[in-house]
Structures are given as C-alpha cells and as structure tokens.
C-alpha cells in the first residue's frame, strides 16, 4: 500500500520517520537535558495534565516487543497478555531506555495482569499505583478518582520536590485541549475518502503527542497540517481508490503487534481509524476549562475513556457510532491481545453492535509472535473478499 503519487514527502520528515518511539525518546532526552524530572507511565488513564503541571516530562514505557517476553516468563505466567509480559520483561532485562530515564512510575489498577505485575516492580523505583474506579457512571466515581488524582499530586510533589498550583493545572488542561484539537484536525485527513495520511504517519504524530505538551510540539503539528492540506490540493491520497476502509478497535497495537496493520494493508485494506490507546482514542475528548476545581475536571475526562476495564463500558459503543459516522469504515477489526479478558469478553458486544449496523466485523486475537501471521492474513483476505462481493 502506498501513496498514489510516488515520492510523496513523509508527513514528519525527520530522521525518525517510521520510528515513532525513537522520536519520543529524543524528545524526552531534550526534556531531561533542560532539567525536567521524568515520570514513566503505562496507560492512557495516567492523568498527564497533573504530571505536566509539575513541570515533569512524560515517558511512555516500553511494552511492545516480543524479544523481552521470554525473560518475563521466568516470573510471569505464559498465559498472560503480551503487553504486560513485554513491559515486565523490559524491566527485568533493563532494556527500556524510557524506564531508565524515569524518576518515578505512575500506574493504575486497570486490569488483573497489570495490577499484579506492578507488585513485582514496585520496589525498583518510586512507584505510585492509582486505584481506578471500575464503574465510571456511578455517582461517586468522579469524587473517588479525583481523590486518587490528589493523592498522585501529593506523591509527585513529595518525590519530585515540585509543586503544582491550580493555575499550573489549569494551564496544563488548556494545553491538552489545544493539542487534541490539532490532532483531530490531523485525523480529519484520515477520515477523507480516500485518506491522505497512513497509519504509520498517524503513529509518527501520536507517539509524540501523547507524552509531549502542545507548547513543545505545536510547530511540528502545524507543519504536518499544512503538509496534509498541500497533499489534498495536489491530489495525493493513500492507498488505491476504493480500497476497503478499516477501523481498528480494541487493545493497544504497536511494535510487534503492528503486524496486524501490515497484514491488513497487504491484504488490500486501508486503515483509516485506530480506536485504541496507541492510536486516536486518547485525543478524542476535551477537558472542561476554567472550572472551580480543575482536578475534578481532569477526573471527569479520564473516566470518559471507553476502556474495556470499565463496566458496563457502554461508552465504547456510543463512541463507536461516532467513529463510524466520522471515518466511514467498510469493516471493523477488533484486535484483542491474547489473554486480555476485558477486551476479549467485550468483543462479543462490539460484534453484535456493529453487525447490527451492517458493518462486517473481524475479531483477531493475537500476541507479539509471528506464528499467526499466515492465519491472520487468510482471515483479512477473506474479510475483504466478502466486501467485494457485497459491493
């Protein structure tokens, strides 16, 4: 799969094109050199505005490589999600530079495996585990989660010897909103028919935009938008005209799991929306500005994240409707990482919901190994063949 016009300039035209993690690492290094402390995070539930309000840099920790899994399985069961095993393996083998840079680690009780894995790394660096509400729609969820964010604030202030005033927090909220608005303008180019941006370019931006502040990357984002507009003017688009548009939902997909994306493209599909924490999901909602209690505003926003660790996660279905409306997919692929019970059980509901809308649905349960590549390819090809027939 490629651009219709050969020689199209990459969206982020630097030495890191196609290697988004390296770009993020470079960014983090520069933050550190400027004297900022670094906070390592694992998950989209980490209240990043609080971390930035402390003047700290954010390191999204390594979790996407098959190569650290064997080392992890010395302590962890093999029947566990590869993301958790890989995360732990990176630490056990001391091979995650992001972890190396981190002064403290912030984690959440999202799923069983993560929660228990954190117990095994808690003693290595200062670590704060936030008790995440599991029923986001319950009346007390907001105050409970706010209390956890306040505890995080106290932890960071003490451990990093930094302070965050309400004004700092409010400024961080506004920064996030500004960033998310620009990112959504970028995503609009994926929503176009045909798209003018590909999934690797989306990752080039999201991998940096998750940890970075708008202030730090505004220029790069604006430049990317300009480039995308130029592409439209020049008639550049990605993939064949009429290639089936795929919305990928489910677990985070990156590194060795990105094999799924490659296979989809090789089978003729074009990825137009990535509904997961490594993709577009984290940029989809705004935080209320200028409220009397900015921490409560942050709490409300994070509780809106439609993750399968929540119950009942009905917001995933209503958000899915909005995504379908916006990105107009021809098919939906639900990626479930092996042994991720939350997304695995929820997949049934998602399948019912989207098939009722008449959109073909494919669930792929996979891990980071290459053993199932052939099988996934066959299933992706079959999916696109059905689409051809029904067209």
């Amino acid at each position: 799969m490629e651009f219709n016009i050969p020689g199209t300039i990459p969206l982020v035209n630097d030495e890191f094109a196609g290697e988004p993690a390296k770009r993020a690492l470079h960014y983090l290094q520069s933050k550190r050199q400027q004297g900022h402390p670094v906070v390592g995070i694992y998950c989209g539930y980490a209240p990043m505005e609080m971390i930035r309000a402390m003047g700290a840099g954010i390191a999204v920790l390594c979790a996407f490589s098959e190569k650290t899994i064997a080392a992890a399985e010395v302590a962890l069961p093999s029947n566990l999600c590869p993301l958790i095993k890989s995360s732990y393996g990176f630490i056990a083998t001391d091979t995650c530079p992001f972890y190396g840079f981190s002064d403290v680690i912030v984690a959440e009780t999202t799923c069983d495996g993560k929660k228990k894995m954190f117990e095994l790394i808690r003693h290595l660096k200062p670590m704060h585990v936030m008790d995440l509400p599991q029923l986001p729609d319950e009346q007390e969820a907001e105050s409970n989660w706010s209390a956890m964010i306040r505890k995080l604030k106290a932890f960071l202030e003490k451990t990093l010897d930094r302070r965050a005033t309400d004004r700092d927090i409010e400024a961080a909220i506004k920064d996030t909103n500004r960033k998310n608005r620009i990112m959504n303008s970028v995503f609009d180019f994926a929503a176009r028919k045909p798209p003018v941006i590909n999934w690797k370019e989306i990752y080039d931006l999201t991998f940096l935009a998750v940890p970075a502040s708008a202030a730090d990357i505004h220029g790069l984002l604006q430049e990317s938008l300009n480039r995308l507009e130029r592409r439209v003017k020049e008639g550049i688009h990605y993939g064949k005209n009429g290639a089936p548009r795929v919305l990928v939902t489910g677990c985070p997909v990156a590194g060795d799991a990105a094999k799924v994306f490659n296979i989809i493209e090789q089978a003729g599909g074009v990825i137009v929306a990535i509904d997961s924490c490594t993709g577009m999901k984290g940029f989809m909602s705004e935080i209320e500005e200028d409220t009397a209690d900015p921490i409560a505003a942050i709490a409300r926003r994070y509780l809106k994240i439609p993750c399968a660790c929540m119950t009942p996660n009905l917001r995933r279905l209503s958000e899915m409707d909005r995504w379908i409306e916006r990105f107009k997919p021809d098919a939906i692929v639900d990626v479930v990482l092996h042994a991720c019970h939350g997304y695995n059980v929820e997949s049934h509901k998602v399948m019912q919901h989207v098939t009722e809308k008449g959109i073909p649905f494919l669930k792929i349960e996979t891990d980071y190994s290459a053993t199932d590549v052939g099988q996934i390819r066959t299933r992706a090809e079959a999916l696109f063949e059905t689409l051809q027939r029904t067209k």
Partner: protein
Amino acid sequence: MNLATFGKLQQVSEQNLLDIGQAKREGRKVIGFYCLYSPVEIAIAAGAIPVPLCGTKNDPIEAAEKVLPRNLCPLIKSSYGHAATDTCPYFRASDLVVGETTCDGKKKIFELLAEFRPIHILQLPQNQDLETALSFWYQEVKRFKERVEKETGVQITDERLSDAIRLTNEERRAKKALMDLAKEKPCPLTGRDLLTITHKIGFFMDKRKGINLIQEFINEIQTTTRQGGNPFAEDALRILLTGVPVGLDSDKVIRLIERAGAGVICFESCGGYKSVSLIDEEKEPLQAIAEKYLATPCSIMSPNKGRYDLLGEMIEGFLVDGVVDLTWQACHTYNVESYSIGQFVEGKFHLPFLHLETDYSESDTEQLRVRIEAFLEMVKN
C-alpha cells in the same frame, strides 16, 4: 469417612430447594451471590434469602464458550454457562444477583448476565488502603443496603444488621471449629469430607440448620476418632491447599492428593479459612461489615498482604508439610501472585511448594496425578 451425619446433610440439602420455593411463594426474596466479598448480612437483615450461585461444574462450559472466550477461567465460564442454560436452580430462584468488580473476567460477565436477572454490582476497591479504599467501600456497601431495601421493601435497621452479624458470626465460629479439628495429628477428617460439608451447608436457606449440623458433624467426628476411626495414617502428609475457590465438582486436585495417601488438611481459599474471619460485633454494624469484607485476602487486591499473613498462620497452626497452590486456568491474579507465594512458602517456611494450573475438565488428570505424586514424594523426603 462414613459418618451418619452425612445422611442428614443429604436430606437437608434435598429439602433446601423445596424450602426456598416455599419461602418464595410466601413472598420472601432470594438474593444470589457469587463471591466472598458479598455482604450477605444485608440480605439476611432484610429477611431475604442469600444463596450462593452455581459455578463449579464443567457441564455448562461448552455452552458458555458460544459467547465467552475459551481462554477464560472455568469458574467464570461455568457461572455464565449455568445462567445461560438455566441449569442453576439458585440462579433461577434469585430476584437479584449480586456481583463485585473483583477480576476482569467476572466484571465483564456481569454485563452479560444482566440479560437474565437484575444485577447489582458492588465496586470493590483494588487495594485495602484504610485511608481511601475503606470509605469508598463503605459507600458501596451502603448503596447495596439501599438497593436491598428497595427490592424487599424492608427497612434495614442497625438492630436487624447486628442480628444478622451475630448469626453469620455464629456460623463462622462453627465452621472454624470444624476446620480446626484438622489441627489434630493425625487429621480426623479428610479434605474431601470437609469440602462436602462446607459446600453443601453453604446453600442452606436456614443458617441455623447449618450451624446445628456442623455441630453434629464435630461431635460425630470426635466420637469416631476416639474410637480409632481415623481416615489417615499416623504419618500421612499434611497438605495446605491455597489459591482459587474449589467446590464439590471442581475438587479433582483434592481427590488426587488424598488418593495418593496425603491429607488436604486446610484450605486457604474462599470456601475455607478465608471465610471464617469474624465481623466486629462492637462496632457500628455497616462499618464493621465494610471493614470485614474489605480485609478478605484475595489476589485481586494489590498488594495482598493479608494472604501471606493468613498462610503463615495456617502453616504453623495446622502443622503443614507442604503447600499446593491451585490456579484456575487464565485466572491472572492468582497465577501471577503464585510466584511471590512460592517464594514466601519456600523462603520463609522452607516448605515444598507446588503450583498447579488447571481447569474443570478431566483431560489433564493423569498428568496432574504424576506431578502430585512426585511432589508428595519430595515432601516425604
């Protein structure tokens, strides 16, 4: 063992469902529970009948897998399968089913069970931090009380709650007395018998009947052993079984250990010693209930310090020779925790430790038998 009280147990068990049916016809509500974190006192205080729900049989798993992933804990698949195939009379009788956000799999199947019965979910904190978790949990328990009041039309006063606490505490004391018989050497009852008694009595509508029957068992066991009728040889190995809940139909590991001549002396699991810690009768009742249940040492808590404390207490109190840690397949929390538990048992107590991961099927029975026999051989030396 061949105890006459087993006949009586069978008789009351058979009568029990008929009694529940009769009570329902007379207007009493039935509330179904899945987990040891459920505050049953609230149901009792409202005059409702608390019943445990089925989840220990292999049969309904195939039906469950039409909707649920295969790679999920058999207890969860069995629970869902029983409900989906309408093969659990207690689920059928329930006017309200109670669930907790314990583990990922359970949390998500309650969404699907809502299709069959009204569900009330208690949001369980994931740690036992007294500063924040306890006040959150207290709110949840209070909300549950309000829900039960609405369902039953009964106002749950402190007095009613205190009565319920006294009753369940009495049951806990009786169960503990029965379990503590196993502190004797040689052990006067088999693990399989203990499980049969606690499993069946757990379903009794009338807690009083259960308490009396446990007392009868204790008396009969003591008389029998005085007369030399002990199920174990003097030097039989004493095994502590820790980990996931086991029931009468999911007891293959217990059967295998005991067939090999060793005794499962005590259970550090939900049906076992975890279930006999008391509620403080002096405190404000709802607060005391919240405190007791939050302290349950399950692996879904992080960290789960209480499990290590309880294990240590049991290893010493029951003169244990070896520890077997049972994990149901794909139960991540017990599976991951097993690593630290193994280090604790071997490091602190210098006891042999065996971790077994299995499901409800019989497909691996032979393999388990070989591993268990090899383990017991090692314990002996």
